[in-house]
């Protein structure tokens, strides 16, 4: 297979954390203000981590550095023991909805299929297995009746479910989810919450940015609180044992 990164997909390093972030700092190009400052995080395989904070706290920046979208100015990021950017197939990223061009002429099925591209690489068309997985995830997110619809003709909640289906169809071990429950209708919230619960049963590692602190204890193994690009202690009303700062 001709991989997009040009190197073979390495196996995970034995007993390595799913994600290990040490002394991480970053700055957006053209800005003097640090988007992240000395962030440290260790996530074991199968754990679910919430990144909690207000807008601009650094949650999305942290996810983007791990996804290799934003360069580091200091520190290290290792995914299953490998430097980030060397195991693309093991990391799946759910962006915020505003980051896609929804007017582009692709339908839901084609959008979801893009989640399999990392396994296909250059020049290879989708296999039967790829197509079967796409249908499975479309059904899981209850988008069957919309599979042929152009993505711009979906509601906000349906769009969110479509890009989540793309994230899931990659079958990655580490999922980076940037506010999947933000500004969605009640039905979509229920569907997505059920799907996220199911991920735990499958042993997937999840790092999720969220504003919602109501269900931290029930839905996550760890919560990382952030403010102005730094990790901060949890608020007094949160259970300290489960939180890292």
């Amino acid at each position, binding site marked *: 297979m001709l991989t997009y990164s040009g190197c073979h997909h390495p196996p995970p390093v034995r007993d390595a954390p799913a994600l290990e972030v040490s002394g991480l700092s970053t700055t957006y190009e053209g800005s003097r203000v640090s988007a992240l400052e000395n962030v440290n995080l260790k996530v074991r395989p199968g754990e679910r981590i919430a990144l909690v904070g207000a807008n601009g706290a650094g949650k999305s920046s942290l996810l983007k550095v791990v996804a290799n979208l934003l360069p580091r100015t200091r520190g290290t990021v290792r995914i299953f023991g490998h430097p980030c950017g060397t195991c*693309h197939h093991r990391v799946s*990223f759910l962006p915020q909805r505003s980051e896609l*061009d*929804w007017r582009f002429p*692709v339908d839901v099925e084609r959008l979801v299929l*893009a989640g399999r*591209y990392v396994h296909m690489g*250059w020049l290879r068309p989708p296999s039967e297995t790829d197509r079967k997985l796409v249908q499975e995830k479309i059904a899981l997110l209850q988008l069957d009746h919309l599979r042929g619809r152009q993505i711009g003709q979906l509601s906000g909640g349906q769009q969110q479910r479509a890009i989540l289906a793309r994230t899931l169809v990659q079958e990655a071990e580490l999922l980076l989810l940037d506010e999947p429950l933000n500004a969605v209708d009640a039905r979509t919230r229920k569907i997505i919450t059920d799907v996220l619960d199911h991920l735990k049963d499958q042993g997937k590692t999840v790092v999720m940015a969220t504003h919602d602190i109501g269900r931290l204890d029930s839905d996550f193994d760890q919560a990382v609180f952030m403010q102005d690009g730094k990790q901060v202690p949890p608020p007094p009303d949160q259970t300290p044992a489960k939180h890292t700062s």
Partner: protein
Amino acid sequence: MSWLWDPFLDYPFMRMAFLAVFFVGVTCATLGVYVVLRRMAFIGDALAHTVLPGIVIAYFYGWNLFWGALVAGLITALGIGWLSRRQELREDTAIGVLFTGMFALGILMISTVRSFRDFQGILFGNVLGITPANLILLAIVAVLVLGTILLLFKEMELVSYDPNFAEVIGLNTETLRYVLMILLAFTVVSGIQAVGVVLTSALLITPAAAASLLTDRLPVMMLISSLFAILGGIIGLYTSYYFPVSSGAAIVLACTVIFGFAYTFRTLRRKQPNQ
């Protein structure tokens, strides 16, 4: 009905011109869909104008003008990519500076030549005077551009609507952008053969814009865009055969009329209930 066949049966240059508009139409219209969807219309127009100095230099040295245009086009494509990557200037500003400067240089060089007529074909197109050697070059460009679009279809598509996700799975979006710019340079040089420097961007944009009004499937859009460009080319050829008008302008105007029909059709379809 003999008026339909006579031009092609009687004159070999009309058959050559038909083949030329076919190759140029398909190439420009297919890549044009990406140009329209990625909002690169200004780059397409700029590339068409910046090849002028290359053409004039080729003319001075007696080379094939096609190669002069291609070299200038490739240099500009890579130059625009490099300038916008450095982010010291906004991309449209960088293009504006390069585009007008190169075009002015081309005009300045032309003004040193006694006969402006030698460059009329390049500025305004001369598809009726296409040579067999240039027709072969147009066919090669068509195969190269369409082959690359086909081979990189899924990657080009993804990078166009979600470049961040493309980066996450390891695709180098910057490299793909350069590939697109290089294909654009080849396509523009091909378009110049048919409609000239001044009107080439119309062949890139108008058929694709018309197709984008009628479908929301990318491959279908490319197909409709190509059909519109070929249709516009044929109508333009007939018009310039039966009336004493410029073939390049006639082709572009025919494409504009097709766009008008597509726009009207879409507007009427939207007004219908249950649509």
